[in-house]
């Protein structure tokens, strides 16, 4: 019997998902565990493996379409088998649109509160023709839109005069073409075609050609500069970090850590065939320091503070198209090698887009390490829901004064960003120094 394959609900919060890419096509033979498609959630792009075997009979949800979770993505079964009935996919209603749509209706109902006719109330009253409420700008008329198709213009920029609400009519478009100087603009046919494809406005394209003619190069430049929509993941980053910067009063504390003994130890271990990244030591040190400073392992909304009993350190991993933060759970309870293995696995998964939503949830503190990128110092933005983030810079051989002598040591700057609502400056300072001490004392770390 043919089986409907749903798009799994990959996290708790997703209501809608988008299949980024199909990895199989109709007619393909599918084995259990084969990757069917990639789904983009608001956290990451995930691969979905098949739980079923058979032939892929039909792809129901095409790539790129936003659909509700758990709707049927495809049908699998025996070749030639009849397809089961599939419910129509309803376009997911976004809350903002729904509330927008509801608002004028309510307003209209209120303003049109019926005068009560006690006599001769008509049993059958025809609705009055519904025009948009005067406040709302009328949409351009179908005729205007149809007419405008042949021109590189933005109808929203035209002032309408039609009907009672200023609908943009064909006449308005004609007037606009004349008054805006559109008609006097010159453009090569090839440039026009590309501009139309790219939905560019003619008036916004800078002309470089002979006699002010817009050339193909002009159009390409304009198309390049045209604002494009962010990917889902970038939108999420934008939203979260903006929230963080707007709502969390950050303060920053920087210390320099002498990493010489750790670097030495790493070298020695490497000779023994054991490979530890610098980050592993930092993660471990941070986890231990967090035990001492619980306010940095908390979350506040400005009214209440929530202490977290578990220390789950998130590790920022940079990807081509953004940033993800997989979480090492119970970090304080894990040994260096455990942390090393887990971080390596998570990072690998992250780079391949295979991270599960669960693996990115529940972090209590984040480390952002740019040590590999040759930076002297930087500050990070706190992940909302946490109280601090530690920015780790490159380890650089630096002349320092030690015991009254100038010596060259492997120095690394770490900068704590902390939420001032939950943490005070001195606390922050103590915390970074605690991390510093742990990193400089190799024995401490190895215990």
């Amino acid at each position, binding site marked *: 019997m043919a089986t409907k394959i749903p798009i799994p609900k990959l996290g708790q919060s997703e209501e809608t998902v988008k299949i980024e890419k199909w990895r199989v096509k109709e007619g393909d033979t599918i084995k259990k565990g084969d990757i069917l498609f990639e789904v983009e959630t608001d956290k990451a792009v995930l691969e979905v493996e098949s739980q079923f075997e058979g032939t892929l009979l039909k792809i129901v949800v095409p790539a790129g379409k936003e659909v509700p979770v758990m709707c049927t993505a495809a049908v699998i079964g025996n070749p030639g088998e009849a397809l089961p009935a599939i419910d129509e996919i309803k376009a997911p209603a976004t809350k903002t649109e729904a509330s927008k749509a509801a608002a004028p209706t309510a307003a209209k109902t209120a303003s049109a509160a019926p005068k009560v006719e006690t006599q001769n109330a008509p049993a059958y009253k025809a609705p009055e*023709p519904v025009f948009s409420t005067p406040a709302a700008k009328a949409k351009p*008329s*179908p*005729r*205007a839109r*149809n007419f405008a198709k042949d021109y590189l213009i933005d109808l929203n920029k035209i002032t309408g005069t*039609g*009907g009672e609400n200023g609908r943009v*009519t064909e006449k308005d478009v004609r007037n606009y073409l004349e008054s805006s100087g559109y008609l006097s603009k010159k453009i090569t046919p090839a440039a026009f075609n590309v501009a139309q494809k790219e939905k560019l406005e003619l008036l916004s394209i800078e002309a470089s050609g002979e006699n002010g003619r817009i050339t193909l190069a002009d159009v390409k430049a304009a198309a390049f500069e045209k604002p494009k929509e962010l990917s889902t993941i970038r939108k999420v980053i934008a939203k979260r970090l903006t929230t963080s910067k707007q709502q969390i009063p950050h303060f920053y504390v920087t210390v320099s850590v002498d990493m010489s003994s750790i670097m030495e130890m790493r070298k020695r271990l490497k000779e023994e065939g054991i490979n530890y990244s610098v980050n592993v030591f930092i993660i471990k040190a941070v986890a231990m320091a967090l035990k001492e400073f619980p306010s940095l392992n908390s979350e506040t909304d400005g009214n209440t503070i929530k202490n977290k009993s578990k220390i789950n350190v998130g590790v920022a991993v940079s990807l081509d198209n953004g940033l993800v933060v997989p979480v090492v759970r119970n970090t304080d309870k894990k040994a260096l090698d455990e942390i090393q293995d887990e971080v390596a696995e998570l990072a690998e998964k992250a780079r391949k887009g295979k991270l599960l939503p669960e693996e990115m949830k529940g972090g209590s503190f984040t480390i952002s390490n740019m040590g590999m990128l040759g930076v002297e110092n930087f500050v990070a933005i706190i992940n909302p829901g946490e109280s601090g983030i530690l920015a780790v810079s490159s380890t650089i051989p630096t002349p320092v004064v030690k015991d009254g002598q100038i010596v060259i040591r492997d120095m690394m700057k770490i900068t704590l960003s902390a939420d001032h609502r939950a943490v005070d400056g001195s606390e922050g300072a103590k915390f970074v120094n605690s991390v510093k001490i742990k990193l400089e004392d190799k024995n401490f770390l190895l215990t």
Partner: protein
Amino acid sequence: MGNYYSDLVPDFKAQEIKFESIKAYHYNKSLKDELKAKKINKEEVQELYESMLVIREFEEMILKLRTGAYEIIKEYEYRGPTHLSIGQEATATGACSVMNITDLITSTHRGHGDSMAKGYHAIRRMTEKELKERCPEFADKKGDELLEAVLEDHVYRTIAELFGKEEGYGKGRGGGMHIADFRVGHLGANAIVGGGVPIATGAAMTCRLDHDKKGRVVCCFAGDGAYANGVVLESLNWASQDQFTSSMAETNFGLPIIYCIVNNHFGMTGRADGEVTGIDFLARRAAGFKNNNMHAEVVCGMDVMAVRDAILRAKKIIAEGKGPVLLELDTYRYYGHSLSDPRNEYRTKEEEERWKHIDPLITFRQAILDSGAFSEKEVAAIEKKVADRNARAARRAVDSPDPDPVDVIKYMYTDSFCNEVPEKYKKVHLVGKVPEVKRDSEGRVNYRDAIKEGIMEEMLRDNRVVLYGEDVSDYGGAFKLSKNMLEAFGRDRVFNTPISEACICGTAVGMAMTGYRPIAELMYMDFALMASDQISNQAAKWHYMTGASTKVPIVVRCSVGGGKGYGGQHSQSLESMFAHIPGTYVAYPSNPYDAKGLIKTAIRDDNPVVFVEGQLLYNVKGVVPKEEYLIPFGQANIIREGKDITFVVWGPAVADAMKAADELEKDGISVEIIDPRTLVPFDWETVFASVRKTGRCVAISQCVDIGSFTGEIVSQITAACFDQLDAPVLKVGAKNGIAPQAYTLEAAFLPSVKDMTDAAKKLI
């Protein structure tokens, strides 16, 4: 013949009004005696028995089909009505056995028997040439073999229609309840109780007037239930009119029709006896319509010989010009109204047994054996022949093709048009001078006379065109449109009718089905609602329901009284209602020129036309050529060209729309006005082209706005021209209410010039 002047002298002398007696069940001959007296021969006896057997075999097939017991087509699942006439066979056979091929019948929803019998006996009367004309596929057969093949074809086409097959009599469009075969004078079974009675009456009108059809008789079958129905009683009154036989008659001949009340005692379940009527015999109805009781008799409808005898005597009366005749055929329906009817809820088993005891087939079979005409063996052979023939036909019907779904609305309208009048109808008999239509010095004629001129031209062209309605003859019509036409064309072609709107339209359908081209006048369009069954269920549907085997070229002229302060029942513009009924055409001229051109087209078109006239337009003048011209249906008129907005408007609203356009012109808004002239067919392309040009449209009429045809126009424009619209399409009509009497109210009720300019300004 002359004009009719009422000249009564009041005389209130005490007296007794006497009713003639009505005979019941007087036939008492035995078959043996009738054979001896040579009132019937052996061959006719066999024909009677065989005819009844064909019917019963057919009806029992339906019965068995429902239980899977009809072996030969056991697998076939019949869906459709099951109004069986088992028990009533003697009525159909007795009547049809003594009718000629060209004699006519109408029948009922329980009409399988009538249809079978009319065809069966007509075929038996056909010459070899006629048989071959009917079934050219049997050209190589002759004699009994040919007759047998054609009879089997008849059974086949009847069953095929019941099964909704393309080869059925109505190409599967009508089914058993609407079966008809015009080639043998079967004008149709009718699923509206009583609906066929005025049609039969109209057919009799044609037979009375058409010299070519003289001597034909119409036999109108209808049940006891129908004889409580208004249009049936209207028909009885219609048929009995003195003007057909009195000194004022031009053709002095009583209507050649036999009303056969097939009294099976149940109108669905309502009992004629002691429940839903107040009389013992339905034949008493006749006493109310004609002093001679319409020669009424009650006949035993279980005795085929008694029915046959009564019809033969009725035909004699009719041949003498003394029709109409009414016969009550007392019979019984063995099964319920349909097979889903649990008849034990309203009658006893004992009652059924008593009737089955005098079963028409069993008693006639016994009479045949008693008379010695045929032996038991011979009778059994007849029975087997009929059963085998029906079975073969049923098998063939099941296997025959279903209609193609793409043809779902094929046959709704006919394309045919009376381009050429048959020679015999070209000669028109005039009894006086044709009245002249007044033209002023500029050649202008008023709307009323433009219509009159159109009608008269058509009446001079074609003798089949007749005009009738209330007050149209001597008086010249309520609005004097037909003044002096009686004096020119005579009372056969211009005659008054009783105030019976349903019957006016129903008789027109019957006349049209039998070749005439009647113009029926309804004084006010509001009254068309009284005739809406005859216009909407009958006139509109018969071409389709019979698979295009008949045409109904009638014109129902009706005028709209709106704007005169006549109130709710004399002011309605109802054209939208009739435009909603598939099968009718609807025309509404807005000016004299169109009026003449359209009425002539309406008369020549072979489809039924609802022709709407505006009473307020009757005195509007316009140039109307004296010469003949026709305006094709479905061709809109661009009355005024414009570029900013299109008005689609018809009827009296056109004049207001013109004023509105003048007003708007002052504001620099240029209006294009399109008068569709006919709502069905509608000239969509002209309207679309205009809207594509202007980008804006208001549809205007005087119909009440809700449900008006203007809404259809808005919908079609929105679908076809959406991308060319600069504004929503609006409609303007009368208020959603009832036409008031008060001047102030009616002015507010009807759409005004301001309503039109306001609508236009909203869109600019």
